[in-house]
């Protein structure tokens, strides 16, 4: 079967969605299908650009392709007679982020008009898909809630989980991911003011803007935490990541209301590490069972600090939770076999 994976892109920027799109394309090939990844640049600022991007997608054609698997808005607007979705998220600024500080779209007649167009296009074109899978229950629930459209959850596996391993439970908690406000690395830094043990924090990832980086740096300086917080402000290789995780005490991840459970959760569990997250972090809460595979706490520095201290003082609990995380992954049957079967059925 000839499959086209269609995704958005911002030139020179790559994150979880881009990696998933690449992994899916690669795996389809490994399973004997022909697959091509098509990336369509998306610009959303100023808001009229959103409508232009949507139109561009409607105007594109996909010849010589048996099936399309689209991952994001507005890439799923590219017409094709046999389209499936693996929806990672809708255009959240028009949905769940509307009315929050992360709204993005201006609350003006123009902003509202753009929002209406997005909603109408989704309502019309998403229904034409043969089948919609989503990456998490949160995404499915939103799609049901906002658009009345049913979907099925298909959890995305890691590109390659075989390389992760556990090399004990060290003295640091690791926070991986892009450094940006909505990932809330600052909450982790502030928590380090309140810990009572000798625990350390390692933050590693590429910063989204230099302002994001400056904010974290000044926070560390302001609270005199340089001896406790190590900042690795760059893209880290798969090797480095695997090593950092293998020796960590636990993994911390506090994004604000993310759709997916975050690859980092999977990576932590494959490394047999517990995950500390926050109640308002979104999809990740479906993957972290409080007290069982990690700790789910309110999004305030003192609560986070208490959770970190607890794992530092009770390594047996850290190990037990990390191992339970690995068990959880096994029971959920997160595998490429299932994903490929779903998209080539």
């Amino acid at each position, binding site marked *: 079967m*000839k499959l*086209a994976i269609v995704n958005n*892109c*911002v*030139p*020179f920027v790559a994150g979880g969605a881009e990696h998933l799109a690449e992994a899916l394309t690669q795996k389809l090939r490994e399973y004997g299908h*022909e697959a*091509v990844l*098509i*990336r*369509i*640049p998306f*610009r959303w600022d100023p808001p009229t*650009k959103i409508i*232009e*991007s949507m*139109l*561009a*997608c409607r*105007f*594109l*054609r*996909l*010849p*010589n*392709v048996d099936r399309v698997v689209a991952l994001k808005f507005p890439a799923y607007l590219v017409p094709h007679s046999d389209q499936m979705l693996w929806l990672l998220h809708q255009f959240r600024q028009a949905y769940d982020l509307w009315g929050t500080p992360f709204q993005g779209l201006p609350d003006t007649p123009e902003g509202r008009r753009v929002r209406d167009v997005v909603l109408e296009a989704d309502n019309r074109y998403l229904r034409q898909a043969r089948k919609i899978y989503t990456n998490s229950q949160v995404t499915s629930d939103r799609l049901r809630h906002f658009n009345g459209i049913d979907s099925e959850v298909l959890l995305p596996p890691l590109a390659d989980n075989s390389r992760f391993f556990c090399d004990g439970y060290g003295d640091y908690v690791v926070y991986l991911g892009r450094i940006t406000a909505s990932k809330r690395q600052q909450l982790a830094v502030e928590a380090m003011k309140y810990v009572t043990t000798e625990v350390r924090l390692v933050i590693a990832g590429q910063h989204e803007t230099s302002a994001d980086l400056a904010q974290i740096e000044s926070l560390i300086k302001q609270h005199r935490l340089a001896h406790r917080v190590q900042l690795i402000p760059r893209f880290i290789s798969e090797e480095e990541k695997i090593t950092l995780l293998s020796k960590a005490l636990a993994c911390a991840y506090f994004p604000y209301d993310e759709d997916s459970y975050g690859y980092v959760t999977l990576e932590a569990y494959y490394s047999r590490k517990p995950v500390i997250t926050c109640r308002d972090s979104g999809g990740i809460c479906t993957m972290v069972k409080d007290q069982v595979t990690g700790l789910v706490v309110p999004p305030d520095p003192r609560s986070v600090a208490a959770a970190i201290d607890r794992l530092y003082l009770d390594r047996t609990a850290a190990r037990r939770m990390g191992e339970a995380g690995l068990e959880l992954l096994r029971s959920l049957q997160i595998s490429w076999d299932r994903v490929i079967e779903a998209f080539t059925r």
Partner: protein
Amino acid sequence: MKIILATTGVPFVQGGASLMADWLGQTLRARGHHVELLEFPFDSRWEDLLAQMLAFRLIDVSQQGDILVAIRPPSYLLKHPNKVIWFIHHLRSAYDLWGTRYQDLPSSPEGLRLREAILRADNLAFAEARKIYCNSHVMAERLAAFNGVQAEVLYPPLFQPERFRGGEAGDYLLYVSRLTHHKRQWLAVEALRYTQTPVRLVLAGKPDPGGESYLQELRSLIERYRLSNRVVLMDRWIPEEDKIMLLAECLAVVYLPFNEDSYGYASLEACHAGKAILTTADAGGACELVLHGVNGIVLAPDPEALGAAMDRLYLDRAMAQRMGEAGRQRIAQLGISWDQVVEKLLS
């Protein structure tokens, strides 16, 4: 530098443009540049042309990258403050193929309007570009004639050409190309019919999607002339390693397309492998690379004459070899190299 490379293609069809973009991307990355390669899908059915052209005006990459290098149409309709076009061909139906049997736009008023729209869109995109390079003199002339544009010729090199090696000349002529009518594999078969020697012909390449009828046409031609024992038809994509071997051991290379935009990678590969090239005077770009009697033979598209040339190559191996050697010098003479490409595109 941050470089956006844009081109178009039919998914799963390996064309010259996608190779060119891919190789340019790898070359630039190896030299420390950040490259974002965007290969957009494109359907050349005339009913869908305008909508897709509009899509390229609406997609906005103008905020990203220090430079946009656009290759295959209509990717050069993308806007960018620093746009460089490495032009390889027009939407040919609206240009040089208009009025030929290969024209697929209708000649109706609607078709005429579409042709006009394509010309105007192209002229707009060319006016926006900081610089236009093209892949051959054929293209430079067409751009001048149809669009009034001055383009500089910048020949596309092969990727890691040192992979192509020479070898003992065998008894077969090799024609590697997509199996499609205007590549005129049928002419090679017709020519073979007139040969007096036992020279053989290997036709290797993938048929175009939906190109079964052409493939059938070739098969029945081979049958009709009772050439089955002298023609090998490899109707599939040939892996690089196999191609390199086929080339190394061939007697010479045949390349007979009708009025192509550029010399075609097949003929450039022949030069790197030190093989003579048999082509026709109406082949287009190939005639820029092949000098008659120097690194190959250039004839009218006449089966009988071509057949005689095939015999000559078979009987006079020393001549075939001498011409093959001259091909390597021809590459140097034309300055076909990545150093040249990178310097020009980024200057």
